[in-house]
């Protein structure tokens, strides 16, 4: 037998090379598939959590239903408006969003008295603090945002993350709960009329929680006095002219509380406040609203409270 063993044949060499290649390729393919599957499942869970959170936010009232009256009692976060005891899907209650902003800001997020509420908020996002909620207007401009430890000078860490999920749901920002007082449409005869009042309640802590604005609509001259009675058409804190159509008072950041109203007729917490409304001019009508916006809002956003407007609720989550 002058033949060499099978292990030395070229065929065997090819076979071994092929086997080695196959094993190596399979290993690489398996590793790649495993990594992709892992990335996919992580991405999927992030997407799923953000999607579910957005659903819960604008379809439920939260627990308890009126958690915005005492945010420390929050057990489950929900931002929908209430209508006859039931949530109105696809709406964002501005009062609840204001409370969410208060709870998440840098002063309150780590405050021990808010521990239960912040835990409830985190629970909605799978226990993570890596989330941001934004309300955008119909032109995609940001109205308000909230994320853990936000302040007027910082941005969320979503900008620095390589993996960010952004869920956008269409919602209506309805005026309902943001309007704290409404005269209704008041028809008036020609000449001057005095003695009309608009009373509205300001709860404890609400001057810090909200910015307060007055919106006047109509076609009569209107003098508005805050917490002062029957001072006459010449005395006013704010003046609406008959051809103004619609005006917001005051036109400055912070609203009525931050305004330069004289001491003695600024808003007071824990009691009814009143607007004295004196009118003059040809026969016509007026309507006055007192509206609240989440603290630190742009004063121009007060106008969106009068009509229910299309908006976008954006939930961002990241790793």
């Amino acid at each position, binding site marked *: 037998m002058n033949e060499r063993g099978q292990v030395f044949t070229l065929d065997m060499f090819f076979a071994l090379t092929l086997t080695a290649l196959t094993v190596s390729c399979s290993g690489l393919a398996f590793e790649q598939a495993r990594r*992709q599957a892992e990335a996919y499942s992580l991405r999927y869970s992030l997407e799923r959590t953000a999607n579910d959170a957005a659903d819960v936010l604008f379809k439920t009232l939260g627990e308890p239903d009126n958690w915005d009256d005492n945010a420390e009692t929050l057990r489950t976060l929900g931002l929908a408006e209430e209508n006859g005891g039931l949530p109105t899907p696809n709406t964002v209650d501005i009062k609840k969003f204001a409370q969410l902003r208060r709870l998440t800001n840098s002063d309150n997020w780590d405050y021990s008295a808010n521990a239960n509420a912040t835990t409830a908020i985190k629970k909605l996002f799978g226990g993570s603090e890596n989330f941001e909620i934004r309300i955008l207007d119909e032109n995609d401009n940001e109205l308000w945002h909230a994320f853990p430890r936000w302040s007027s000078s910082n941005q969320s860490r979503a900008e620095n993350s390589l993996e960010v999920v952004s869920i956008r749901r269409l919602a209506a920002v309805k005026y309902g709960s943001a309007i704290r007082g409404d005269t209704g449409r008041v028809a008036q005869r020609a000449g001057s009329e005095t003695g009309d009042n608009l009373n509205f309640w300001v709860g404890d802590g609400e001057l810090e929680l909200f910015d307060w604005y007055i919106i006047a609509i109509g076609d009569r001259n209107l003098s508005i006095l805050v917490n002062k009675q029957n001072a006459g058409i010449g005395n006013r804190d704010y003046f609406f002219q008959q051809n103004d159509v619609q005006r917001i008072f005051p036109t400055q950041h912070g609203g009525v509380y931050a305004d330069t109203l004289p001491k003695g007729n600024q808003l007071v917490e824990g009691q009814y406040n009143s607007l004295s409304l004196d009118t003059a001019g040809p026969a016509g009508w007026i309507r006055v609203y007192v509206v609240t916006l989440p603290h630190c809002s742009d004063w121009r956003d007060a106008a969106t409270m009068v009509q229910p407007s299309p908006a976008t609720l954006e939930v961002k989550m990241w790793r």
Partner: protein
Amino acid sequence: MSFRENKKGFIFSLDATLGILVMMLVIAGVARAGGSELTYGQHGYLRLERYANDALELLYLTGNTDNIKFHSTIDNIENLLYIGQQALAENLAENQLRKILPNDIQFRLRIGPENNLRLDNVFPSAGNHPWWRSAFDNVKEIAAASRVSIFRPDNRFDIITLYVWRGSAI
């Protein structure tokens, strides 16, 4: 099998070639399984579907207040149809849906069954209906949402259907 018998090796056989081909296909398939297309396939369509449902819901939630009561956009459309102002109803629906939906989402709104439409040709821009109709017919991925409403004067139930798809405007 050896050189002395002058036979070609296994690697050159048709079986081996086919075997390698099959193996490569399997590897490529496995590698693709977790790819980004699959992620889009599951979540991208879900988002489109939610845009359709949310936008239709917002037609009921947004509208105007006439100092006495709130009128939703759908109420206003129904009223315009009732008094025979089809063109105004079409404009109102177009404008409101354009406000509600993002710019990269296009839409078509239809009220009534295909053979007896109360309102059609509600597309993202006024006019250019044949162009939009063609875009609608040719789009690959489309999501729809429906609601039933009562319409005057015959108080008949009719379906309001909103179709949305991703695409650029004219």
